[in-house]
């Protein structure tokens, strides 16, 4: 069995093995193997190519952009997604605009350990995908499975553009697969994670698993819920979403991030503008509450969507 976290480690090992242009840079990623052990053993296996960085996110990302201009393919680990805000300027103004302004590609991968876990609090829990997706010039990946964590990270390194790789900390240890994949769904394509005909849930990252659990529960009542895993939120596979809504007539978009202007809002906007006639009921969405992510598990458990609250929303959608 291989975990989601091990898949991320394995993908980085393969990237280092296959391509001498790849190096890894981030705080404590060297001998220590990273705060979550995503680079465990790599510094030893690839001497001089897995480097500990100072606590300087702006410089870490800025230097990766410089190295990419010179033809390297850096993989950057932010210790937590939340700290990428300190490097925000380099990401959204430098990396995201480089190719558009100069035709020089910027093949950097920025790994963001994302999302909430119990007790992590406001600064170690954030889901930042929407923020980065907002900026033209970035690809934003949000893998929800062990297989995708592996194949999408390899793809991220191979792509000639800056990729924000949002890996979910909640999935690190307990999400397991039999083995690593040998082939992958193309980047930019969503995946139908569960087929159904009564309603469509569109989701991504850790919320895929809450949604699947909810679909399973409703199946025992006879409902057939289709669950779509977006995989990459930018680009967003509108075709797969619309095709599903065409079959079910009902849409619930679920995300762990804050509600204002995020992925779920985008999904609903696209379906409402491009597929309004496909809808049998007003589309719905479910997100975290619009407050910072709370520390205590009692609050955190309510702050983000869960299989239970998704089921409540879905029942309303089905009866609408």
């Amino acid at each position, binding site marked *: 069995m291989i975990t989601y976290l091990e898949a991320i480690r394995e993908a980085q090992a393969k990237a280092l093995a296959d391509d001498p242009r790849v190096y890894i840079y981030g705080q404590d990623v060297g001998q220590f193997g990273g705060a979550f052990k995503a680079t465990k053993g790599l510094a030893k296996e690839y001497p001089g190519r897995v480097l500990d960085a100072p606590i300087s996110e702006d410089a870490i990302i800025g230097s990766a952009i410089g190295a990419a201009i010179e033809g390297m393919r850096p993989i950057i680990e932010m210790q937590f997604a939340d700290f990428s805000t300190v490097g925000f300027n380099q990401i959204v103004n430098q990396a995201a605009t480089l190719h558009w302004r100069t035709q020089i590609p910027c093949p950097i991968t920025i790994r963001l350990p994302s999302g909430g876990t119990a007790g992590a609090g406001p600064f170690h829990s954030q889901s930042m995908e929407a923020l980065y997706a907002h900026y033209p010039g970035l690809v934003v990946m949000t893998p929800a499975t062990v297989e995708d964590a592996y194949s999408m990270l390899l793809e991220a390194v191979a792509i000639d553009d800056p990729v924000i790789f949002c890996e979910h900390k909640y999935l690190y240890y307990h999400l397991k697969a039999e083995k690593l994949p040998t082939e992958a769904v193309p980047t930019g394509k969503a995946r139908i994670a569960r087929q159904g005909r009564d309603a469509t849930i569109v989701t991504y990252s850790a919320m895929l698993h809450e949604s699947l659990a909810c679909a399973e529960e409703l199946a025992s009542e006879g409902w057939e819920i289709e669950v779509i895993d977006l995989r990459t939120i930018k680009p967003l596979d509108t075709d797969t979403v619309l095709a599903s809504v065409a079959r079910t007539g009902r849409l619930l978009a679920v995300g762990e991030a804050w509600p204002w202007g995020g992925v779920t809002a985008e999904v609903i906007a696209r379906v409402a503008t491009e597929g309004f006639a496909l809808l049998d009921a007003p589309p719905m969405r479910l997100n975290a509450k*619009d407050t910072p992510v709370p520390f205590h598990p009692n*609050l955190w458990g309510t702050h983000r969507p869960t299989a239970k609250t998704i089921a409540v929303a879905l029942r309303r959608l089905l009866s609408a």
Partner: protein
Amino acid sequence: MVQATAVSTASADTSDLKARFLTAFRWMLLARVVEEKLAALYRGGKITGGVFLGKGQEALSVATAMALRKGDVFAPLIRDQAGRLAFGETLLDCTRTYMGSRLGPMRGRDGNVHRGRPKEGLMAMISHLGAMLPVVAGTLLARRFRGVEGTVGAVNLGDGATSTGAFHEGLNLAAVEKLPLVLVVANNQYAYSTPTSRQFACEDLVDKAVGYGVAGHSVDGTNLEACLDVLDRAVTAARTGGGPQLVIASLLRLVGHGEHDDAGYVDPALRKSPLGADCLELAEQRLLHENWTTSSALHEMQQDAQRQVEEAVATTLREPLPDPDTEDWCPLATRHLCEGGYSPT
């Protein structure tokens, strides 16, 4: 908030030193005892999330806070339990925040070391390292605007935080404005697993003072008397118009980065070096050596600390936890602009 500690001069007489040393020692001991309790609670699954301890840094931390007065501003970081206590934070603020009590200052919304009472001059740190420095500079700017004189702001950071942009920008801004700010850097040789050799290339962090145009001080962070003395001088200099003061303390983090970390990466030679000495043990030896206290009095102090800690924990364990149904999900002060924890369904 601050304990009534006389502002002493470098020529403090022995009885003054004795009194300050004993006061400092009591806070250090209380900090050590509560931290050991926190570690035990963590191991027992009573604390969710991280536990970050300041073992080995109590002398520096307490000296910073004891050099401050009521009305000053203090921005402690993750290893400042001793300084927090000396500045006036209660044990209950600590235990309640760690365990998420609804009655704590953070009401379960934030946890562990992310706590404070800004109204009382105790800043509530965010995780992003270095970020508190410009914020404290701002509190001091505000005091200047408001015509409040004679107060100081102290910011504690680690060696790792010196690499942040916020450190550079904050210290430079404070220097340009000649603010009464004391920046205390605990160089505990590591930032998580990263040794100082991967953090900065200057010989000595105190050399940075020259570049920023601020006064620099070095101190042995394992030596309580030295810490009391140097922090006192730095704070007095800031208070009397000397502008920002950069204090660099040398010591070693004697625990893991957090309680989840066994710190196996720490160089054994460092542990055995003078940097690896335990400031609390050294202070205790000094107390006995100078006959400032007796073994039995020390024993009583220990028991008293333990009793206070047990009481705080017992109180906290009886208290209500946050309740999502009655929680106020409005993040704004301007309530009518709040979308009410807006959830679209």
